[in-house]
């Protein structure tokens, strides 16, 4: 087994372990920290695929900004593990059914999907580098890119509108 493959298996093990720990841990702060670890290992996968730009952006956006906000909110709420209410039986049964259905759907989709094979002779290993990514984004996928940016702009304006204080409204 060459080093890339063993590294891949190590990263996959770590990813799945931390993803499971996100669900299993009883302390919400621990869950958030495991989720951050999961993002790091995913960035490791991107680097193995020679997509360094995607790896860096994944760290900056998810680990650096979104998870900080998650941690922020959880710290403000000051959730403790002892005031977690017990789930009723109906909730447990419903959760099992929903989870099982999602699993069956994912498994079915995985069985049906045809993963495109690549030819090692003419495969361009530099395709994930930032220059190539920029060329592809701004030439072939310009319209989806612009639409996504407009969507983000609309979301930002909406957030500002929601957060804005009305005239005469009290502070807290």
């Amino acid at each position, binding site marked *: 087994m060459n080093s890339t493959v063993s590294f891949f298996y190590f990263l996959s093990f770590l990813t799945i372990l931390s993803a499971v720990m996100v669900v299993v841990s009883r302390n919400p702060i621990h869950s958030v920290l495991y989720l951050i670890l999961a993002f790091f290992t995913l960035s490791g996968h991107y680097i193995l695929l020679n997509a360094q730009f995607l790896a860096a952006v994944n760290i900056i956006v998810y680990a*650096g900004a979104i998870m900080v906000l998650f941690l922020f909110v959880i*710290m403000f709420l000051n959730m403790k593990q002892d005031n977690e209410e017990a789930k009723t039986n109906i909730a447990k049964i419903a959760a099992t059914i929903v989870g099982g259905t999602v699993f069956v759907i994912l498994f079915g989709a995985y069985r049906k999907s045809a993963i495109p094979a690549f030819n090692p002779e003419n495969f361009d290993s530099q395709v994930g580098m*930032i220059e190539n990514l920029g060329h592809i984004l701004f030439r072939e996928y310009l319209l989806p890119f612009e639409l996504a940016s407009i969507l983000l702009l609309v979301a930002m304006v909406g957030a500002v509108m929601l957060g804005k204080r009305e005239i005469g409204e009290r502070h807290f």
Partner: protein
Amino acid sequence: MDLTEFLVKTATIFVVFVLTLVIAMYSTWAERKVAGFIQDRMGPNRAGWGGLLQPLADAGKMFFKEDFIPALANKWLFIAGPSLAMLTALLASAVIPFGSTFRINGHEIVLQGVESNIGILYVFGVVALGVYGIMVGGWASNNKFSLLGAIRAASQNISYEVAMGLSLIAILMMSSSLSLGEIVAQQHGMNWNIFYQPLGFLIFITCSFAECNRVPFDLPECETELVGGYHTEYGSMKLGFYLFAEYINMFISSAIISVLYFGGYNYPGMDWVYSQLTSALGSETGHNIATLIGTAVFFGKALFFIFFYMWVRWTIPRFRYDQLMNLGWKKLIPLAIFNIIITGAAVLFLKPVITAWLN
């Protein structure tokens, strides 16, 4: 990658690591000396000549104090806080280009830990992670003041990261590369970015003060309101790591400022010095000595900015929290967006006109 290349890379990374630690260590000494000078007193002068052994004495004191963990603190996260702070502070120095190349027996050795084509994004990502050490430590202390300090630190870092990223985009538009080595190489011959991006530089240096939690933005550890801020419960070497991480961050951000805006290892008259040295000492020794001069110039620039941090600290009083947020969101971000638009217009319209006129 063959063995010699691997060993050379390991040695480079080790040298960068040791240099970062030594500079951070002596920054603590320099801070007190600068404070003493500004406040018209002596500063440390007992341990060693001019107090030069003071950092070692401090480290000894920190190591031998009792390592105390509060009873109701979350033990693992309490230890993880300062460790994360040190880890993220030390990570960023990997991509900084400290100099040009060394030539040994025809091999070129780059004075840079890792040459990556996403260098500046890597630094930005590591800076974004820096807040976890403070947040985790502040929360794990199980103390309201620590928690408030941690939350202040987090909101401050998130707010100023936005303006910092936007001011970087103007640089990236000009250099059309994310690699730090490439950005430095393009500033050769006094094409320093500070002459093209004065506004971007002001925004960037303000944001780096906020990111390092330095005065005037040191609200996370504001002692008049929050006792000691996020490190209220910390003592001995764990506190030492938090304080040390701040000095490492200062060195890293000074180095980044000198790389991005002040030409890194470039200096006026560089080509003349290079040709004199290579003609006098041969292409190998001359090249190496020229590289060493460039590296010394780089460290001179970085140390000047460390001094600037200290100068500001002992000159300017602390902001109020609402002033900090207003400055970040309502002044710096619009200014940075304005800077991007100006730069874009200049690159598109002004640059072809000037190049046509010069030719």
